[in-house]
């Protein structure tokens, strides 16, 4: 069991109903954590519509979680 910090922005912040939380998890990777949170909070975005940042850098979904990491799931950006 590790504890990570998750921050939410924009549409994910609204879906989650908060912008910052500590999460205790058994998830091994960033991707597993997102799937867990998605199911728990009924987030609508499939993982492949998002990117993930860990400790302020974009990282692959397969990145192993470490205790104390800060994760941000990045919804699609405006682009226009």
């Amino acid at each position: 069991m590790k504890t990570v910090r998750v921050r939410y922005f924009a549409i994910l912040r609204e879906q989650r109903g908060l912008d910052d939380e500590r999460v205790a998890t058994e998830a091994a990777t960033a991707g597993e954590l997102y799937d867990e949170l998605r199911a728990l909070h009924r987030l609508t975005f499939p993982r492949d519509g998002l990117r993930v940042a860990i400790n302020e850098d974009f990282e692959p979904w397969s990145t192993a979680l470490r205790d104390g990491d800060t994760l941000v799931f990045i919804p699609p950006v405006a682009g226009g």
Partner: protein
Amino acid sequence: MDFRLTGEAIDTAALMAALGDTRAGACVTFEGRVRQENLGRPVRALDYEAYLPLAEKEGCKVVAEAREKFQLVGVLCVHRTGSLALGDLAVWVAVTAGHRPAAFDGCRYIIDEIKARLPIWKKEHYGDGESEWVNCAAGGPARPPGRGKKK
């Protein structure tokens, strides 16, 4: 710093003054402004929300890439956060170079990459009172499945 985010109105005159350099024969600027309409819907205002540390880091990376790809003399880029009204300046890029092809190409590279890569989200407020996060083809569906327009 070549790239920064700000919650205040962008003062382009002051920024331009910082780009004065007699090695530069060309300066190309891009201004992105709040339009009165998007995809046929009247817009009355919008909010930009950014994941600040990553947006700054990625913005600086984009500028560094442009400097590597093109022969540039100077670059400045500023992106707004917070609430903007119609006509307000949302993002500003200025690139100087010895000659104009590099200035045009560098400016365009920077704005295209910034729009596609930086964790900055735009919420549009429409004339009818509705609001919506504006998404883009780069990242996923235009609206998450199963959700209607959010207020």
